[in-house]
């Protein structure tokens, strides 16, 4: 009778990688629902396209690499990547944009680096930046929130728009983009950026309908969507899927930067609340920057990593060429992760410093 031989520990926590990823996906649902509510079915269609592309790409590549793709697919990491990319893309962007982006994320950014756990960059964000640089027009055509749009659109419209560029009634994307005031809508961040450059003050700018929400200065849609993701993020924190370090330090850094600058000149620099709840800051802080593979792995490192992302976001938003900056900031900090990790090693029990104890070693 042969006894089983295994290494301790013999017990294992009942949460594997797949479960972690599923929890993250679950936590995204409130945000996605709100996004769909405000921007129509386009978001769902994009997610569907991205997920299918991601799974097919991952399976094909794993098959080529002669890996067990069934098991790898069960970890849901490709699905999560696809979802994160899909919600960052304008809902009515042509279908090929999201397909190319997802393929790039899975094939180039993730698998060519060696698969899950080996990728240096956050796949979703790397793909987003690639798309933004390659297809700037398609990637910036955000629709007005449905309640502000001149023409309403249903699921079939969205489907048609994504695949043909026109809704069922034949409205073009440009028409769909038109707001109730007849003006083409831009995102709150764009709006502020352009109107500030046109000489309007910040307080004048936020009088516009797009900011017609409970708290002045918040884009209607984006504040609600941010709230949705915030709920999901807090759920992840509670489930200990993510640590508090990165979201907290990132939001705090952005908040402080914005606070300082708006105190300097509140006409030119939007408030901290504006910065936190517009654009993709919340989803970035809880879902993107916390991507375990490409983030820092030590607690101190995570704080540095998060804070640096917050600062970068602010810098790029205020002085950079792009209205939003999460993707760039995350990618920049991804590159710094090995360095951060190396210098933020925790002090081991019984050691007086984090430095290597060469003396101790010599003695032993």
């Amino acid at each position: 009778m042969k006894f089983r031989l295994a290494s301790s520990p013999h017990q294992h926590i009942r949460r594997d990688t797949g479960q972690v990823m599923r929890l993250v996906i679950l936590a995204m649902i409130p945000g996605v629902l709100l996004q769909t509510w405000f921007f129509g079915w386009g978001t769902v269609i994009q997610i569907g396209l991205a997920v299918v592309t991601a799974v097919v790409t991952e399976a094909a590549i794993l098959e080529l690499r002669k890996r067990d793709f069934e098991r790898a697919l069960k970890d849901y990491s490709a699905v999560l990547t696809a979802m994160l990319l899909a919600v960052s893309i304008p809902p009515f962007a042509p279908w090929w944009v999201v397909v190319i982006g997802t393929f790039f994320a899975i094939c180039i950014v993730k698998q060519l680096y060696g698969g899950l756990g080996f990728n240096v960059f956050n796949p979703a964000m790397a793909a987003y930046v690639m798309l933004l640089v390659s297809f700037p027009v398609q990637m910036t055509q955000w629709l007005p929130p449905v309640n502000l749009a001149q023409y309403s659109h249903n699921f079939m419209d969205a489907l048609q728009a994504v695949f043909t560029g026109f809704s069922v009634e034949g409205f073009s994307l440009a028409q769909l983009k038109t707001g109730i005031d007849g003006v083409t809508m831009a995102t709150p961040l764009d709006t502020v950026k352009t109107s500030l450059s046109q000489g309007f003050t910040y307080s004048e700018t936020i009088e516009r309908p797009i900011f017609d929400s409970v708290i002045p200065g918040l884009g209607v849609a984006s504040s609600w969507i941010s709230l949705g993701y915030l709920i999901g993020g807090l759920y992840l924190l509670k489930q200990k899927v993510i640590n508090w370090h990165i979201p907290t330090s990132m939001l705090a850094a952005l908040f402080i930067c914005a606070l300082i600058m708006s105190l300097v000149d509140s006409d030119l620099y939007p408030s901290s609340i504006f910065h936190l709840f517009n654009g993709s800051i919340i989803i970035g802080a809880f879902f993107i920057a916390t991507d375990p593979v490409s983030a820092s792995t030590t607690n101190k490192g995570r704080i540095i990593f998060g804070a640096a992302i917050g600062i970068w976001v602010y810098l790029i938003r205020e002085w950079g060429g792009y209205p939003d900056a999460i993707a760039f900031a995350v990618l920049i900090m991804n590159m710094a992760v090995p360095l951060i990790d190396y210098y933020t090693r925790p002090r081991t029990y019984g050691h007086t410093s984090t430095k290597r104890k060469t003396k101790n070693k010599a003695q032993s």
Partner: protein
Amino acid sequence: MPNNYDDIIEKLDNNQLWDFPGGVFPAERKTLSNQTPIGKLPIPERLFVTVKQHIGVEGHLIVEVGQKVLKGQALTKSMNPFAVPIHAPTSGEVAAIQKHVSAHPSGLPEMTVEIISDQQDKWIQLNPLIDYQSQPKIKVLAAICDAGISGMGGAGFPTHIKSSPKKDVDFLIINGIECEPYITSDDRLMREHAWQIRQGIDVLCHLLKPKQVLIGIENNKPEAIEAMQVACRENPNYRICSVPTKYPAGGEKQLIQVLTNREVPAKGLPMDVGIIMHNVGTCFAISDAVFSGKPLISRVVTVTGEAVEKPSNLWALIGSPVAHLLAHSDYNPKLQKQPNVIMGGPMMGFNVINDKVPVIKTTNCILAPTDTEISSNNEQACIRCSACADACPVSLLPQQLFWHSKAKELDKAQDYNLFDCIECGACAYVCPSEIPLVHYYRIAKSEIRVEQEEKQKSDKARERFEKREARLIAEQHARDEKHRLAAEARKQAMESKGNNAKDKIAAALARAKAKKQAVNIEEETSVSKADLANDVIEAAAPNETTEASATQPTTKVASSNQRVQAAIARAKAKKAAAEAATSNVEVEVPSEVEVEVEVEVEKNNDKVSESIKTETQSKNQSVNAKEPAPHAAKPEPLKPESASSESVSEVTATKTATIAASKKARIAAAVAKAKAKREAQKAAETEQTSKEAPLAEVEDPKTDSSQEPVKTQEQQIDMKKRKIAAAVAKAKAKKAAEKADKSS
């Protein structure tokens, strides 16, 4: 000390504790086995008592095969302080002393005493030490040692050594945490035998004199806490600390951190921070040993897991095979795909190799889980989630350790403090990719140990080699020194002689040199003398003033015939010769003989190397030729013709001489000088003879001409042969002179 005693006490008084980083909360599953009192395991037929069950050295066996032993009889003995004896767990006969599978992860066979029980369980004479407080410490320690007590919680460190510290003890910590899931042996022991544990603590206090006793019990064992509180009620120095349940709070370092916030330095001992820790089981064993004289021959073992139908705690004799415990608890292997028995808990325990593995002093649990209770082997790629780092109680970075261990970058793994890992398994427990992290660390650690051992070996070898080298070098030095001294002594002894000899040689050399120089000078002076003589002669001759002026510089050159000035001399000679030639041409045009001679002079000047020689020659010749001229005022028409023919032949000769190597100019010059001298002498002679015999006038040039071809030949040949040639020439000249003499 960073956390001083009073601060710690103050915090403890406020019922506050510290925390350690990380930690996990695995399902406890303790109720499986802690609901019933500790049962008694029947005496097995055969017991396998492993000789070495602790950290340290093993004793010598003092029993033989076939020998009858009584319960509690020592089987080994040693004078080594790190040796702890083993005892016969029951009465019976020693059936064998041989290697038997061991209670170790490797399962490697170890020396084991096999005892067949006679089922009478007859005790040996026991010697309790009830009045231990009036006994010297050493005697109490000896009693603990002789009872074979070693740490019963973890590694099995000899208790008597831990109980005789050299420094003051702030805290004696009694570890009743039992943080591993499933295990309840300490829990039940505390519940049922709190008083005896307390007595054991008393003994330890007598030995250690700690300022404070902290009894740490996890708050998931309220009954145990209560029992211990009751037992320790009247002693305010005994403090029961209810520690929050978190794995691995029972780790030595973690418990110290939780209770005192002190940290055992890396590679240090708890004693370094004024702390001694003992397990509750050890305290019980001490009390047994001191108050009833019983050695450590049985312990409480939790037999649990869903694959046993009657999980419980049992008093098991040390040496009972696992199979015996399992059988008693109704182990059902059908609930497992493959037989799977773990000795220890699910976090740090190890699989037994087979069911013949015996219970040893540190065995606290036999776990037979069903397949659903344990993790399957489903390793996936690390996703860098660092859940492991969050769980590590030692603040390591398990993920980095894993990368480096797996990649066999042992140096880097050590950089990340691999050896501070306590192998608690918290990291592997939380890893969502189910990587058996601890397994990788164990492999890396053993590889490093092997490497270090090898290094030590090679270091030793190198040391030996270096020592040998050093010795050889030292010997060589000594030898050399000896030789040197001897040589010096010899030298000194020979000092006078040797010196004289050397001096003599030097003197001889010096003299030789001086002589040479003198000779040179003499030669030179002789040359100049000869020249002067010539000059005098020439001056005596009318029409020769210009020629004399021309020859004088050359004479000067010759007399100051320094090597360095050779070139200058040559140049000067050239000039002078040129001058002489022109002047000669001017002045002596009328005399055809003179013209020939001058041509010859010119030619000779052309060949640089031969300048001096030829000049002297020409001089001589001119002397030769001129001499007759004034002498014989009536020149014969034939003579100039013959002379001209001579000069032609001479011109060709000089030309060929030019071809001859000019580098031998110096030798040639010297030779020439010598020749010149001789020729001068000869000339003088001939002159004399011609003077004496005017009839020899015609003959004279002939003798010259006969001399000349010889010379040209000699010039054509290597300069070396010049001397010979000169000698020949001399001889010929002599002959000629003789002839002339004769003819005259």
